[in-house]
């Protein structure tokens, strides 16, 4: 019995396989993620970080290899709504109020209106958006919109959260606040997180492990263990271990860049 939330075995992804200009986006990826891990994926642009995340979510299919989520085929896991996804943009529907946006996944599942709204209200409370239930997305700031998107991704109470550079579009201050917010949610819900980022600081602060990737073809260069104590807070950023891990990640990233040529 596979206890891992995600296990990828020898996964490769080639785009434009039949054409002349085929690109190998990912090659021989082996990665297993245990329950309640917080995994960041970092690497130079074009290293296939987002592709890796989309493969786990079955938004694209691998050219070869095997991907399992909660012990099932990735495809079955998607049909069972086993994961929630947060994109770089909030992707809130502008015609729905915040409450209706957050309860959308439950609506698609056929959950009764009263039940899904109760759940959505609870999640909005968790991301500190009480009082904004009846607002339209445009009435919220970028950070608030992304918090609503996180609440939506948790609506079906998934075991797995896939986050694709969720705070890339936010300013530094908002980003740090959002990092704290995500850690709080991670601790409260015991969810497993796969987090794509290109910020070293963000990766080190949040993760239990950091996957460093190289580009063309996308491969896993190294996996850095982050042995910082949990729960993390502002003091974490001042710890010696924090700087040590940050340096280690930076060195591996430099190697990844050289490797990519």
């Amino acid at each position: 019995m596979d206890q891992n939330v995600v296990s990828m075995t020898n996964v490769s992804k080639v785009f434009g396989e039949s054409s002349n200009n085929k690109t190998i986006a990912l090659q021989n990826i082996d990665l297993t993620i245990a329950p309640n891990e917080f995994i960041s994926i970092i690497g130079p642009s074009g290293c296939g970080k987002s592709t890796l995340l989309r493969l786990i979510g079955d938004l694209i299919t691998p050219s070869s290899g095997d991907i399992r989520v909660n012990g099932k085929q990735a495809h079955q896991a998607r049909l069972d709504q086993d994961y929630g996804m947060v994109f770089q943009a909030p992707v809130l529907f502008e015609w729905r109020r915040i409450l209706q946006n957050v309860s959308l996944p439950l609506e698609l599942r056929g959950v009764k209106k009263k039940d899904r709204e109760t759940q959505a209200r609870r999640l909005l409370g968790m991301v500190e958006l009480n009082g904004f239930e009846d607002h339209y997305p445009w009435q919220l700031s970028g950070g608030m919109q992304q918090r609503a998107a996180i609440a939506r991704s948790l609506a079906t109470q998934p075991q797995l959260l896939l986050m694709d550079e969720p705070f890339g579009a936010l300013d530094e201050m908002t980003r740090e606040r959002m990092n704290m917010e995500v850690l709080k949610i991670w601790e409260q819900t015991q969810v497993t997180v796969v987090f794509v980022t290109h910020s070293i600081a963000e990766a080190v602060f949040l993760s239990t492990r950091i996957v460093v990737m190289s580009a063309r073809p996308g491969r896993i260069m190294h996996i850095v263990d982050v042995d910082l104590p949990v729960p993390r807070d502002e003091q974490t950023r001042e710890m010696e271990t924090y700087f040590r891990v940050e340096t280690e990640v930076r060195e591996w990233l430099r190697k990844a860049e050289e490797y990519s040529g």
Partner: protein
Amino acid sequence: MNWVKKYGPPLLLFIATIALWELMVRMLDIQKFLLPAPSVIGAAFIENLDRLTYVGWFTTKEALGGLAIGSTLGIGVALATARWTIVSEALMPFAIAANSVPIIAFAPIFNNWFGIDNPFAKMMIVAVIVFFPMMINTVRGLTLVDPAALELMHSYAATDYQVLWKLRLPNALPYIFSAFKVAATLSMIGAVVSEFFGGSRSALGVFITQEAAQFRFQNSWAAIIIASIIGIGFYMVVILVERIAIPWHSSMRGPTHH
């Protein structure tokens, strides 16, 4: 005070134009059959008000009937083809080409098909005129969806039906309303102009041509005013419905932001 700021300038411009028109006609002694003065048109308007409302209502029914048929078919075809993008992609170039054809030129042919006195002939002309912008815009609205939103729906294993009703259709609503604004005005123009090619004596377009033929140009002008009022009325109704139906859209937003 806001009211004055908003409506004051256009109202003033309108009054100035009318006054200048009146003044020019009197000072230059322009013949009545070339350009009647606003006061003369106004008098003709009041004198013929009963007749004008009668013919106006007759043509309004044709325009509304055509608008209903054309937009229902246009939206219907767009929805049916949205399911099969290949079909709508194959159809679009023809629709865009057909949209640039002067459909009004078919009026004599339609009169021949359905009978010159039959209002249905005019309704069909209006329906064909309205069909293409309605269909083209609806297809655009259904297909120009944020790829990330589609990915989101996909990640939740939403069915095609759910994607259509919860994403594509709401996304298309602003496009549909833009099409309705165009179609509403086009429907009145289509109805009146198709009546120029012959029709019932109760029709607005027929009234305009007959009065002109008998050199009662002030009556034709008065009829044109009625046609304009109806056209503007259609447009205002669409705006009103739009405000109620899509209050979330960016065009409806007030200036206050968080």
